[in-house]
């Protein structure tokens, strides 16, 4: 963990390094450590935003090293045993209108695990999330939260956080809402102040703390909602299209943050999210489920996409004929969706195909090995 942060810092990735350092400080549950790292972040955040290393470089790295030393002394090894948090068995749901139904879906979610649920619009992703979070009654099957002694819905909803795509409007100052969320989950007094300041800093919301709903952008609302939910320390975090309102950079940051937070050494969470950003989700998630017409047609790690052959997605100025010619004797199926080519081969992997094309002088502006990606099934 610490080496990961050092790696970031060594290569000048200060912003993610700082965020990761904050997560580690949070894992210590040491108020002094959390307070130190919050102050440290507040000092350098503005300077980092200016993107002028001359302003913060040496002082930042010296301070970061000191904090890392303190973290090294205080971090306790976390549990490596990831507990099962949620087990869904044969979950089905049909709406009254009868034109859509969720087929029996099984799902296990472990502490520290991030599962992405992908699929086209109107295929049942949100319905599944709402069923799992207790928002919608099931027609069949069961959802069991294995770590909860009391399976009453109030208790479940106390520990399972659901963030809908359209974030419900909140009122009053952003900071008051965070204090409130922390307090209703039992974080009171000075600890409340400490954690709220930490979350504001961690999600880059400090400058917006005094603002209200109308004064912040939709992207910041998403960040705020996640900070708010995290203050309630849920066991399971369920997010419906959290990337919808974010720019590409923020999407990546959020996904990485969620992954870090889920894998906290002290408070491991299970995270379930839906998204249309297939590439980003696949990069970050431990497992991806593809839902089509209410049915789980694939879950990575459980389904073998390799048997469909190796697949390479690429973008190039070359024509289909030029690609076929460049690949020569290799038995390849070349598909074109109007924007990108997909090359499928049972004999050569993506690396070999790419090498062959480059050797043949084909100019490639984008490529991706989608052999194990759910994108193949879209």
């Amino acid at each position, binding site marked *: 963990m610490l080496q990961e942060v050092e790696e970031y810092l060594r290569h000048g990735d200060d912003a993610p390094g700082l965020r990761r350092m904050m997560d580690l400080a949070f894992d210590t549950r040491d108020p002094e450590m959390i307070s130190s790292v919050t102050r440290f972040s507040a000092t350098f955040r503005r300077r980092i935003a200016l993107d002028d290393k001359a302003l913060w470089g040496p002082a930042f790295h010296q301070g970061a090293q000191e904090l890392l030393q303190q973290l090294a002394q205080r971090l306790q090894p976390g549990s490596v045993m990831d507990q099962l948090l949620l087990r869904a068995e044969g979950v089905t749901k049909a709406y009254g209108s009868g034109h859509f139904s969720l087929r029996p879906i099984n799902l296990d979610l472990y502490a520290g695990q991030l599962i992405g649920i992908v699929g086209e619009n109107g295929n049942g992703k949100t319905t599944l999330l709402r069923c799992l979070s*207790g928002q*919608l*009654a099931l027609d069949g099957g069961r959802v069991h939260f294995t770590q909860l002694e009391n399976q009453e*819905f*109030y208790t479940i909803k106390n520990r399972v956080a659901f963030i809908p795509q359209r974030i419900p409007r909140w*009122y009053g100052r952003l900071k008051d809402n965070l204090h409130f*969320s922390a307090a*209703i989950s039992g974080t*009171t007094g000075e600890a409340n102040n400490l954690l709220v300041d930490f979350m504001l800093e961690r999600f880059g919301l400090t400058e917006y703390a005094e603002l209200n709903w109308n004064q912040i952008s939709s992207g910041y609302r998403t960040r705020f909602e996640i900070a708010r939910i995290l203050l309630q320390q849920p066991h399971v975090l369920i997010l419906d299209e959290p990337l919808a309102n974010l720019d590409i950079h923020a999407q990546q940051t959020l996904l990485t943050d969620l992954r870090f937070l889920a894998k906290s050494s002290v408070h491991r969470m299970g995270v379930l999210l839906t998204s249309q950003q297939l590439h980003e989700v696949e990069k970050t998630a431990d497992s991806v489920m593809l839902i089509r017409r209410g049915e789980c047609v694939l879950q990575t790690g459980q389904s073998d996409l390799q048997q469909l052959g190796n697949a390479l997605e690429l973008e190039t100025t070359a024509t289909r004929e030029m690609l076929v010619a460049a690949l020569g004797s290799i038995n390849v199926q070349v598909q074109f969706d109007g924007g990108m080519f997909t090359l499928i081969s049972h004999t050569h992997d993506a690396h070999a195909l790419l090498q062959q094309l480059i050797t043949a002088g084909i100019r490639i502006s984008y490529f991706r090995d989608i052999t194990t990606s759910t994108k193949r099934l879209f």
Partner: protein
Amino acid sequence: MVPAPLNRLDQWLLKNYPDVWSARTHLVLWFMLLLYLFIATFSLLVSDDPRTRSEMEYWSFAAGLLSFVGMVLWFIFLFRFNVFKRFGNLVTGDRLRTFMQFYITFVVMVAIVFVPLWVDQVKTKIRYSDDEIIRDANLMNYYYNVAERGSFKVISDPDTLLLSTAAPRELRALGLYTYYDSINDNYYPSRFRMLKRLEMENQIASADSSRKLGNVGYIFYSISNLVFIGTGRADDFSGTYIKSKRDLYDTVYNRAPEISAADALQRATTIAAKYKDPEDNYYGYYSEPVSESQAAISYYDDPQMYMNVMHHVNAIDSGIYHITSRMHPFGVSGWRDIMLAMLYISLGLTVILFGFRHTTVRTFFFSLLAGIVLAIVTALFFAMLRGGEFTAFAVVYLLYFVTFFALSFTIPYSKVRSLVKGIALNFTMLMIMPVPVIIAGMYYELAEKHYYATHSYEEIIYPIFPEKNFVMGISQVMGAVILLVLVTFYFSKRYKQWYAQPEE
């Protein structure tokens, strides 16, 4: 407008007791305190002669409107944060505390309408006292009677009431037998009229003056009205009493007065200035005093009217009434009744708000709609049956209550959040408090019916059930206690179960 210490308290509550904080009671109480001070100061400074009719009702109305605006603003703030609807940590007793917070807030908001009346009361009590008013009224009545002795006709007629159980010998000894019935060989009083017991008791209670004839009966005196100036509501709050017609008759007309008519009039006029309502221009059909000769001719047989046209005593009487009305705006039992009504109104509002805070908006408004529909259906039912008895109403009420209670009881067994059960839960909470009173009322109505059916007219002894008022009072208290106990141990749990259940 919020002082720094209150802001600190607000932040402290937010971070330590979010459930208490979210009810915003502390802020509402602060703003209500400011409103109380504003209304009180305004009521204190407003120029208002206590001898004239009080205008404070208008200020009370204005205060009520301001409070209502505050109530709406409070509701808006209540929308913002709700621990319950965010599935926050709640423990036993939290809901009761929230309920009491709402209740206290409503009481403070509703009670503001009394502030102008309280201020007026204090202002008036500084200038006048009940004992002083009664003393002055007695003096004025005495002096005016002395001043006008002989100006109008004064009568004093005795009327005798004999008890039928009195022994004939005693009656004969008092010389009350004037008629001998030879057929029955018995003596009877000359004027004989049968009175019902209640009528007799009323006559004794309302007699201007009376004399008891041993165990035989009473003599009542019917005297011309010589009490020209009353004491308004002061009589009920003082150890001294207004002198009766009989007292005045004895002291002014049965013996020679102690002072001259001129002196008496001067003294009466001096005292009257303290009380005369300056806005009262009524001189008994005239708008100004009339001549003594004209009054003597027109009102010789009517002392009250004579005094009105001669001395404008009705303005004094009216002034005293206004003063004592300000001192005691709701009379003897009025405050208690008004306070009780205020507490009940606040309690009803609290139950409605509590329901709103613990159900969905849809369920809440459907509950209101269902309440209206149910009331209409019930009224039609009674209208068709032509039934007006309390017992019939009680049976229907209890039937509704039991149905709603049973429905609310099944909430834990539902798989989905049911609109009908949500409405039933709201109604159970709204209807629980009057249940003990309704049961007690029904019991007494049935028991009284049975009593009347099994007793002859002569056997009936009032009150039939002496403990009835006490039991009804206890039933009211019991209703409130049961509501609070169920809020703690039943409703809080049911609302949690119901609200958290998934949608269909």
